[in-house]
């Protein structure tokens, strides 16, 4: 296997939080030892509920924040430190798509000026080239030329997100982090933007990290999927396999809760207990208070992410046991 374009190793990000004016400050581990790699031309979906650290992971992978521990390598080289001039130069190769396109656009500048901005920042070619490139970008995201003269508030949600996409693609980046890019759009527009992303990825050989809580969208766009729970990756694997046969109890619950049209409903796993609070993480496996099949060991030891099958890693004591048993059985047979 060739080296992944982006490899993330043991990322940790801790925030200090203070309860009240005189409360003691407390460390919140938003991201707690995340490791994965993304191959060139591949989309890795990152799913999990609010507060699971998906967005923080995305920001760390892009180097928008410095991790407290761990490292991110891009093209085999570690990322330069945030806000240095090398870091700024590296932005031409990696870009981000935001959840709220209206917020991500400057409301005082017409769209064309904003799409052109990365070219101006990174001093790409000359005036003529930039103007031509803007027209090309607008076409590639299926926006008509006259939209370039308009202001962000005059556009629809889908048009705005496509404008943001055009801006992100201006410098021909290799890597795109999409942080919930369609969750603020309605369903028909979602499909439009997702299909555009898929087409562009194929055309430009883009590598993407697609962050979402919407399993249908993730399944549609991703080749591989990582499931996060309270700052840790609990399951990582091929998108189709993972959704068909989830191994981790949390993934099972997630998949069973996601509606699928036409399919006969299997029984739905309803998680009990409190939704996760990253500031008060339970000991052992973070999922054990809500896990239907937790046992004694889950309360004391956190399971590591281990490869249980080719291209499938799970962090659960149960699957570890099962797979150990399976390999033991295999050895006997």
């Amino acid at each position, binding site marked *: 296997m060739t080296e992944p374009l982006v490899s993330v190793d043991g990322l940790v990000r801790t925030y200090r939080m203070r309860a009240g004016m005189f409360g003691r400050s407390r460390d919140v581990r938003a991201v707690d030892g995340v490791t994965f790699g993304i191959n060139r031309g591949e989309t890795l979906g990152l799913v999990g509920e609010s507060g699971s650290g998906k967005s923080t992971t995305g920001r760390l992978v*892009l180097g*928008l924040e410095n991790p407290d521990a761990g490292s991110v390598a891009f093209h085999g080289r570690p990322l330069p430190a945030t806000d240095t*001039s090398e870091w*700024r*130069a*590296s*932005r*031409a190769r990696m*870009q*981000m798509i*935001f959840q*709220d396109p*209206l*917020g*991500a*656009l*400057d*409301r*005082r*500048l017409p769209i064309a000026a904003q799409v052109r*901005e*990365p070219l101006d*920042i*990174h001093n790409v070619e000359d005036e003529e080239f930039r103007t031509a490139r803007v027209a090309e970008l607008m076409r590639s995201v*299926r*926006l*008509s*030329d*006259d*939209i*370039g*003269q308009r*202001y962000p*508030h005059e556009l629809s949600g889908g*048009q705005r997100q496509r404008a*943001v996409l055009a*801006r992100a693609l201006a410098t021909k980046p290799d890597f795109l982090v999409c942080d919930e890019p369609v969750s603020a759009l309605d369903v028909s527009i979602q499909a439009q933007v997702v299909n555009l992303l898929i087409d562009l990825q194929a055309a430009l050989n883009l590598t993407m990290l697609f962050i979402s809580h919407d399993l249908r969208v993730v399944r549609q766009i991703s080749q591989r999927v990582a499931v996060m729970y309270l700052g840790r990756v609990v399951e990582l694997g091929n998108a189709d396999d993972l959704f068909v046969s989830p191994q981790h109890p949390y993934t099972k619950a997630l998949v069973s809760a996601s509606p699928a049209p036409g399919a006969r409903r299997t029984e739905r796993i309803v998680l009990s207990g409190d939704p996760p609070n990253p500031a008060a993480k339970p000991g052992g496996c973070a999922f054990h208070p809500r896990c239907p099949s937790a046992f004694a060991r889950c309360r004391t030891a956190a399971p590591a992410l281990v490869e249980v099958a080719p291209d499938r890693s799970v962090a659960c004591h149960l699957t570890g046991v099962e797979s150990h048993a399976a390999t033991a059985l295999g050895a006997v047979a």
Partner: protein
Amino acid sequence: MADVSLPESTAARRTISWPKIPPLVAIAVLWVVAMLVVAILAEAIAPYGVTKMDLRNRLSAPGNAAHWLGTDELGRDVLTRLIFSIRISLLIAFGATAISAIIGTLLGFLAAHFRGLAEQAVLMLADFQASMPFLILALAVLAFFGSSLPLLIGLMGFYGWERYARIARGLAISATGQGYASAIRQLGAAPSRVYLRHILPNIASTLIISMTLVFPEVILLESGLSFLGLGVQPPMTSLGNMVGYGREYIGSAPWIMLTPAAIITLTTLAVSLIGDWLRDKLDPTLA
């Protein structure tokens, strides 16, 4: 897709349409332009020399052929003195407003960008400035260094900077919290580009409003200092200076004081009107 087929004519029309200027704003603009022209061409249009005395026509009422706006107690032509006063007062007011806006905004941006110690230092200076009556500060400086026009402009330039600093800091911090500033940052833009090209235009409306508030205050402050004898020194004259000295004759020759007072009122009103209109114009979402 529907938006592909839109005709290009909408774009063309948009660029041609000229912004409509309300009549009141047009009058205000004309007034300020007229004041600027008067200030620039003072020597050419003033009928007399600024210190020229006509002792036979002392305290003559406005409306006579030799002195349209009358004369003061030394027989100096009020119109001439008014013209030169406008020059000095506008110089001080525009100069000081510009200086304080630039200093304040710059310090506010520095505070917002570096946070931590730099921010604390700027806020402490702002609090210090706000808690100290500016007139006392100005009196102390002028008493030590004597009064000269550059010093006066520089000193006035420190008036009101803390408001810009606070506004710029607060708005810049909230802008970096919002999407657009962080989006531009992650495009690889240097902080100077983020602040000057994106955050500054976005907060300009608020800054312009506070400039139109500071402008009249600077004129009034200068008037106050001149009245106390520490501002513009005779034989140089300013609007405040004229009001100050004309006050003694308010009963017998009110025109000495009323004409510069009217100019102060009209100019500050015009600046406020223009600022208000400009704020709306600068915001494309209100267009």
